């Protein structure tokens, strides 16, 4: 064998193997192709499977969504229901509340009506009391009129004819007869003074003037001027604090001073000239006036009694014709009470007395002139 041949042979072989190889490769390729095809088919199948799965998942999800939506809807419905229930409840509550409010209103109205009725009743009662008071005032006035008029006429008859008897038959009468006549006419005189005093007493209420601004210093001066006879007779020294302007009945305040100062002069010690001082203290709600003397004074046990009408501590003769009937302090008390104040005293026998009275301070009352 030649090289060539050998070579040829080798080339042939090589060629053959190459072809074989090529075939093998081709086969391999075909096999690979097949495999690839299988693979692709498998992948396709898998892909299909996946898509199926996905589809299933979708539908599942959709179902799920639907379910969820349904749940949500249900929840919403529940919520709406709850809300509705709440609203209803609220409404009921509101209704209840309204009913309560209504009931409360009705109660209030009823209470109000009750109050109104009560107030009306009270009003009626007040009116009745006022009417009664007016009636009793009118009766008092009537009484005053009767006492001043009808009682005085028979009294005048007694006094006048006893006196006529005395005038005309004086010479034919003995001492006893003259004494008797004296007592009779003295009694008649006293009774007449008492009737006049009663009249004055009854007029404190029925004839009182409406309250106005009263300069109490001027009222005191007026009183002192009315008392000047006894002031001069007893040589009384009278002093006073600066006195305020108050709200009251001018002539009654003056009368109050006149009665108190009059007493202070009258009940002075025998043979001494009276010292009298009038002072005032401004209190929170009232003016407190006082009339102080250094006279005979009186015991505590009589402090109340002397304010009672016709109550005196001394016999008729003791303090003379000007002795009074014992109505002065009763009138004072009535005047002070009409002004809404109080009257009282401090006293000791032999040391003197201080009479106090208060007059409520009204708004706008001026201060004391200090």
């Amino acid at each position, binding site marked *: 064998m030649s090289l060539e041949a050998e070579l040829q042979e080798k080339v042939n072989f090589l060629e053959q193997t190459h072809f074989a190889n090529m075939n093998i490769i081709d086969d391999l390729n075909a096999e690979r192709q097949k495999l690839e095809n299988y693979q692709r088919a498998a992948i396709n199948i898998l892909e299909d499977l996946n898509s199926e799965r996905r589809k299933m998942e979708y539908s599942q999800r959709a179902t799920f969504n639907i379910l969820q939506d349904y749940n949500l809807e249900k929840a919403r419905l529940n919520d709406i229901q709850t809300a509705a229930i709440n609203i209803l409840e609220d409404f009921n509550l509101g209704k209840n509340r309204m009913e309560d409010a209504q009931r409360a209103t009705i109660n209030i109205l009823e209470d109000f009506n009750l109050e109104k009725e009560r107030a009306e009743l009270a009003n009626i009662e007040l009116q009745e009391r006022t009417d009664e008071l007016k009636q009793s005032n009118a009766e008092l006035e009537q009484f005053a009129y009767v006492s*001043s008029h009808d009682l005085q*006429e028979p009294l*005048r008859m007694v006094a006048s004819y006893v006196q006529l008897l005395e*005038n005309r038959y004086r010479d034919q009468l003995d001492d006893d007869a003259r004494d008797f006549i004296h007592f009779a006419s003295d009694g008649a005189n006293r009774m007449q003074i008492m009737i006049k005093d009663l009249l004055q007493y009854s007029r404190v209420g029925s004839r009182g003037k409406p309250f106005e601004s009263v300069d109490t210093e001027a009222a005191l001066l007026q009183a002192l001027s009315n008392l000047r006879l006894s002031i001069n007779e007893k040589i009384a020294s009278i002093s006073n604090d600066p006195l305020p302007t108050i709200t009251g009945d001018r002539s009654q305040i003056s009368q109050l001073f006149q009665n108190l100062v009059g007493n202070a002069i009258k009940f002075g010690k025998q043979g001494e000239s009276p010292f009298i001082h009038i002072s005032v203290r401004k209190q929170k709600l009232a003016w407190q006036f006082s009339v102080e003397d250094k006279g005979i004074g009186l015991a505590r046990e009589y402090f109340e009694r002397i304010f009672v009408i016709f109550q005196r501590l001394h016999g008729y003769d003791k303090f003379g014709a000007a002795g009074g009937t014992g109505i002065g302090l009763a009138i004072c008390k009535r005047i002070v009470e009409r002004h809404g104040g109080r009257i009282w005293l401090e006293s000791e026998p032999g040391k003197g007395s201080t009479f106090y009275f208060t007059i409520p301070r009204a708004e706008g009352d001026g201060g004391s002139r200090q």
Partner: protein
Amino acid sequence: MTLTFGHTREHRAINILLCEDNPGDVRLIREVFNETAARLELSVVMDGEEALDYFRCLDGHGKTEMPELIILDLNMPKKDGREVLREIKKNRKLKRIPVIVLTASEAEWDIDTCYELGANCVLTKPINLDQFADMLNTIEKFWLDMVKLPKMESF
């Protein structure tokens, strides 16, 4: 009361009408006037109605005389002094006659009413006889001697 300054009245009695229900007062007034003067003619009526009758009789040819002065008690039965006073002052002829009101009351509403009704003066009767006599004497002196009374024409 002897001096009358040539007044014509000393020659004839003055006619006074006294309206007074109380016989005690009438007598007292008579007693006092009798003690001092006999120159007044006192006619007496005992209540308001009688007083109005008296005035009615004047209005014709009644036997009553026109009074020159009227003394009127305020407190009388039937028609009281106020009503009599009102009638007097309403009448054209009677209203010129001075009216002295005598009252036992010092109640000021009485006094005010009297002046409102046209009383010429109002006096309260004092309890004391001497004062009462003084008052009547003063009435006499003032109204009969000092005051020029209106000329009385008959009806």
